[in-house]
Structure formats: C-alpha cells, structure tokens
C-alpha cells in the first residue's frame, strides 16, 4: 500500500531533480527502506512531505558521494598506475572519506581547522598553537571538541 501508493510519484519527483532514472530508482528504493526500517508504516497526514524530506536527504548524500569520488579520483590521478589503490581499496577509502566528511561537517570552523592541522598535516599540538598564535590550552579544547564531534557523527 505504502509502496504502491507512493512509489510512482516519488520516482518521478526524483527523476526530475536527478535528471536520470537509474539514480532516481535507487534513491526511491532507499527512501522506502529508510521508512520501513523505522517501523513507520503510516505516514501521517502528509505522507508526501515526509517522503520528499527523506528523499532530499538521500539526494544530498548521493551528490556528496559523487563529489567524494571525484575528489578521490583527482587525488590519485598523479600516482603511477602501480601505486594507485586497487578497486577494493578505492571503495574502502571513498567510504572512509564520506564518514570523515560527515565528521568535519559536525565541527565549527575553527575546530575543524585545528583538527585538520593535527590529523591531516600531522602537526603536534604545540606546533598548531604556534602556527595559529593561540595557547596550547585552546588547541587542547578544540581537539577535545573535535574528537567528541567525530564520535557523535560516526
């Protein structure tokens, strides 16, 4: 009932936004999985509003994945073929990048900057304090906040 009542227009709605039927079908499917797995079989008074809300979130994730895949491809492009990660490694790395991206999004700007210096540039906390001209205590406070954000996002 849920599926047959709503699948058709949701697919059409998605196709219009994504411009292709393949991804629209995937995301329509995922939208229903999302709802059914939460045990919500009734959709309330505004079933379309709920479905489009969930679908929008999935569309944004989908676009993000395309961005992540592109960013990945660009960053391995200069590697000699022998050193390029295998297809399996690629899937793992892209998945990890998606999660790191979600973690970074959960941090305020200053915290993110300090976290990136530490975890990406491998700078010790004292060096970060010096580079940004802030106290070590401030670096510690931001790093703690960053790790908490990571754990909450993961």
């Amino acid at each position: 009932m849920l599926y047959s009542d709503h699948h058709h227009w949701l697919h059409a709605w998605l196709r219009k936004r994504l411009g292709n039927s393949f991804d629209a079908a995937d995301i329509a499917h995922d939208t229903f999985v999302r709802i059914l797995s939460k045990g919500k079989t009734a959709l309330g008074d505004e079933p379309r509003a709920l479905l489009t809300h969930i679908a929008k979130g999935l569309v944004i994730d989908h676009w993000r994945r395309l961005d992540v895949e592109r960013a990945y491809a660009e960053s391995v492009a200069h590697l000699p073929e022998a050193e390029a990660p295998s297809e399996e490694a690629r899937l793992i790395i892209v998945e990890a990048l998606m999660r790191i991206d979600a973690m970074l999004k959960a941090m305020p700007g200053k915290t993110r900057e300090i976290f990136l210096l530490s975890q990406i540039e491998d700078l010790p906390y004292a060096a970060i304090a010096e580079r940004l001209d802030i106290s070590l205590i401030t670096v510690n406070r931001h790093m703690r906040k960053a790790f908490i954000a990571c754990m909450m996002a993961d």
Partner: protein
Amino acid sequence: MKSTPAIDPILIGEAADWLMRMDQGALHGAEQLAFERWRSRTPAHAAAWRRAESVMQTIGAVPGELRGNALRGLENTDRRRVLSRLAMLAVATPTAWMLYRELPWRDWSADVRTATGEQKRMTLVDGTELVLNTASAVDIVFSADERRLRLLAGEIMVTTGKDPSPHYRPFIVETSQGTVRALGTRFTMRVEQAQTQVAVLEHAVEIKPLRSDRATRLDAGQAALFNIDGLVGDVRAADAAAGIWERGLFLAQNLPLPDLLAEISRYRRGVLRCDPQLSRLRVSGAFSVTDTDAALRVLERTLPVRINSFTRYWITVDAA
C-alpha cells in the same frame, strides 16, 4: 550512521581525553594501566572506546597523502556547488530550464551528469549535440563570447551545431589537462587518470595542453592523448570503433579479456574482478554496454570462464 545506540556524553568526553592523550605519544606503564582500568570499568565504557577506535580507524583508512588532497578538493567543491544544489532541490527543473531558454546569452552554468551504466543525449542552445557516456559529468558554460564545456569526468561526444549567435563564439571543451577547440566538427573526448583522450570523427580540433605553448591540430580520423604538459606519444589513427559507444556498443578486436572487463566495468557499479590466469585469453566481438549482464553471459557461454557473483556489485570472472 545515526542508527548506532546513544552513548553517555560524559563517557564520550572521557574517551576524547584518552584519544588526545594517545594522539601525543604512546602511553607509559602507569598510564596504560589507568587506561585499561577505565576501559573495562563497565560495558558502556568499552562501547565508548569502541566508538573512539572506529573514528581513528576511519581516519586511518585513508592513506595520509590522499587524505589532505581529497579533503581539500572537497572543500573547494563545497564552495562551488552547495548553493546551486539546494536551489535545485527547491525549484522544479522545468522552471529553471525555461529561464535558461529565455536568457540564452547570459552567463549560466549547469551540471549534467550520468550515473554508472547510463548514457544521456541532449541538444544545447546553439544546436550542438552532446552525448554523455557512463559515469560522466559536464559543466556547460555558455557566454556571449564563447561556448565552453568542462569535462569533469568520463566521456562525451560532441557534434557542434551552427551557432545562431550574431557573432562568432568558439566552441571549447576544457579538462584539467588543457583545452580542445572545435573547428566545426564531431569528436569524442575522455578523461581518465590525469590524461585526456581525443578522437576526431569529422573535420578537426585543436589541442592545447594547459602547460604547453604548442597547439596541435587533429584532423578527422586522428586521435591523441595529452596530459597537462603536452601530448603523450604521437598523433595516431583513431580507432575505427571510436565513438561507437554512442550507439550502446563496445567493439573488441582481439582484446585481452582483462581489458574487455575493464571496459565493461565502466558501465557497472561495484567490483568486477578478473582472475589473472585469464589475461592471455583474447576476445573479439560487439558487446552491449547498456546491458552488461548480457555481455557477461555471452562471455560465459563463449569462453572457458565462469562468472561468480557474490552480490550484484561484486563479481569475479574465473577460469572454468
């Protein structure tokens, strides 16, 4: 991601303290003991620490050098894209399309993408026919002075149209490696691994690698590969089957099986692996790129191979 059970925020905070401590060097004897005691105090402590470990594993899963480049690449993407996307979700596409139709000479920019396994054909305002092959992305940037496509990923075929603009606007396709300028023409371009491949089917194009002062002209029937610094190898004869993908086909002529599978996997999601033992098998024939399951079935019928699929997204081709 949000499905994991909630963990006491106080324990998350304590786990963060330990992460920071370990981030600054290995734990010493007494500290190590204190940590073990903390972690085994209750199952909730252990669960908080597993969450912390999962974070570090996620970060560690991306090799150091890639991590920086990829994340910086993403930040740039954010600046360019987020607003236009939110707008796309808010506004129905037909409206946006009509706006563009009415203001053809204004600067505008659009993303066109295809999913893996999909092809898309469209006619641009100047009458140019653009076909996107699988997993491709193009920005279309037409202005009063030029018609420019940015080929961001994948492969396209361009058949330039007769521009109705009152004055001449060059038609240019740009990749990260350089530009290709159409000289009234039909051609295909593909970007892969920091290289751009061009094959000219009609008339001619002019290639200009980004960091080279030399432009190279390619005529009909010719193909070339270039990177950011210049041509890679010489101008060569275009493959007779160049551009046949536009009709949903791939032609193999005495091609090693792994090469054919690599080509097929461009049109499929997931992993398609080939047993290295099979690299001496050679294949000739026309294969459908729009129904790659069928193509794989043909291989299984005609070659001494077995197709094993664990899931639709994980397939191996082994010796039968």
